[in-house]
């Protein structure tokens, strides 16, 4: 059983959805990443997404664009991120990378898969690598024991859902047609999307893009196995970067207590 999948099982046993926060490596600085991840762990994160910043993040809204730009302006390097997570992985919940295809392609998909796995990463999410183009990466990643997380969107076809049936880890449900960033309300189509995926794919479904607060996380947790929160968390850090760890802890703790109050559907 994949380490990621078992996280969802454990959360389900406790009657709640898994909580998956996202942070950009290198924002506010790479040296702060261990402290931020420790704070997220202490606040109850079940899986943590670590963003490798990219110069042209076309699936991201303004908050995550800004975090990536600032991280790169400070010279955040892929090799340094790998070194940093190597120290973190043994003392953290399962970690997954989220990045764009070009940094991985440039590093070499086989070498990246191996080095990420060696550093203790459990999975990889690449929003601009559709499943149909991802064969090479999946072969390399699976050989290294790294899960490549498939994405589904409100526009996804049934054919796409069929093609990801053998994926590992979990399914990343994109809640809106759009880029990352906080929304005022959860899209009404999300529930139907999750149910559609679950009829076809035997994996947990975590929902992300646009979840801004504990109330929205609770709502999504009624039908999804996991809740992914990125922009809203990074925004909280941005509001007071000097206290990034405290901001991250408080934000995720609040989400977590919200999630613990709902029982997910079995």
């Amino acid at each position, binding site marked *: 059983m994949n380490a990621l999948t078992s996280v969802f099982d454990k959360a389900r046993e406790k009657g709640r959805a898994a909580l998956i926060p996202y942070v950009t490596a290198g924002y506010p600085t790479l040296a702060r990443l261990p402290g931020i991840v420790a704070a997220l762990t202490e606040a109850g994160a079940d899986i943590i997404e670590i963003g490798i910043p*990219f*110069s*042209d*993040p*076309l*699936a991201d*809204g303004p908050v995550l*664009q800004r975090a990536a*730009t600032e991280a*790169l302006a400070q010279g955040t*390097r*892929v090799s340094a991120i790998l070194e940093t997570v190597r120290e973190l992985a043994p003392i953290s919940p399962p970690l997954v990378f989220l990045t764009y*295809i*070009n*940094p*991985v*392609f*440039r*590093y070499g998909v086989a070498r990246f898969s191996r080095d990420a796995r060696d550093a203790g990463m459990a999975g990889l999410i690449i*929003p*601009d*690598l*559709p*499943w*149909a*183009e991802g064969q090479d990466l999946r072969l390399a990643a699976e050989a290294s024991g790294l899960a490549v997380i498939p*994405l*589904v*969107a*409100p*526009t*996804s*076809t049934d054919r*796409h859902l069929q093609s990801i049936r053998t994926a590992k880890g979990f399914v990343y449900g*994109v809640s*809106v*047609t*759009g*880029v990352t960033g906080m929304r005022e309300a959860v899209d009404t189509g999300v529930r139907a999307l999750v149910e559609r995926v679950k009829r076809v794919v035997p994996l947990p479904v975590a929902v992300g893009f646009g979840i801004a607060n504990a109330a929205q996380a609770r709502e999504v947790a009624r039908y999804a196995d996991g809740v992914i929160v990125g922009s809203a968390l990074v925004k909280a850090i941005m509001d007071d970067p000097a206290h990034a760890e405290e901001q991250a802890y408080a934000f995720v703790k609040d989400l977590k207590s919200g999630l613990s109050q709902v029982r997910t559907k079995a």
Partner: protein
Amino acid sequence: MLTTRVPDRYGRFGPFGGRYIPETLMPAVEELAEAYQEARRDPHFQQELKAWLKDYVGRPTPLRRADRMSQALGFDVFLKREDLNHTGAHKINNTIGQVLLARRMGKTRIIAETGAGQHGVATATAAALFGLKAEIYMGAEDVQRQALNVYRMKLLGAEVHPVTSGTQTLKDATNEAIRDWVTNVRTTFYVIGSVVGPHPYPMMVRDFQSVIGREARSQILRILGHLPSHIVACVGGGSNSMGIFYPFRQDPVALVGVEAAGEGLDTGRHAASIQGGQQGILHGSLSYLLQDEDGQIRPAHSISAGLDYPGVGPEHAYLHYTGRATYVAVTDQEALAAFHQLAEWEGIIPALESAHAVAWVMREANRLREARAEVIINLSGRGDKDVDQVFRMEGGDTGERADIRI
């Protein structure tokens, strides 16, 4: 000369091309690929496109020997006059095609990215012609450099969104257009301006621009009775060059793509993705890119906003990879000298983009003369849009001009 038919059904030109886009957009590009295949085979669509190109754009554009230039250089140079198209460049060949397709698909909202503003103007024009709403993304730096084109787009009823992220040029405008597309995918048609992007765009834009090469081929055969020795065209994303190259791909004709060397290939301040970049993935396809060791995209630089892009169309990457086309580069200074020289020789002020192609022919004149070359230059656009920029660069009305003559 045998050339495998590219792209394949996955949009691959050898190892290049493909579809590297968010899952949200996949159904949209699949729908587009199907709609385009149907339109391509529909004689009614083809006739309608042809009629608009003739009666609205003003095609066919002339191909004529540049007499004084030929005399000065000592070999025959022919100019394919895409500058004479409505809106002043080749860009409209593609936008009329894509907007007709958008209308056929029932999409009501048009978006586009633009660098120099030529593609934005051509998109706004086609949208106005068919009564559709157009929104154009343009880097804030380009908005400054090409203020008149911004006003043209507004006159044509388009909304222009200045993009302030990243380098504030064409690549960032493209990122922002893709973000809009992913948000409004159900109603919106994204009119991409070059032979870049996810499949089927590189193929579709090539097909729409191939009218340049089809005309040039029959015109030169009529004038000379045989094929030329060289076809020369500038390459940013690469749509005018691909448009003129493609119909000659199986002929014994040298195809020369001229990239922008900016301040020099060795300075790092250039836009020559093929000669100064490595393989990588940006804006939906695998091609050559300007990037650092971590795959972060490096800003491009060129005097010409239309070439100021850190990538290149995947079919150009393929033509380079197979050796079928040759890629060279000329600097800002050389392009500027050619801009002046063509005006004085032929009474034609070229776009700074097209001046790159002219500059390579001037630089290689000795070699071409010895080879008794017969060269077609694709004059992809006119230079009116650049006159103000060059005027200011050269010291404005003080009468002093930097020494830029060769």
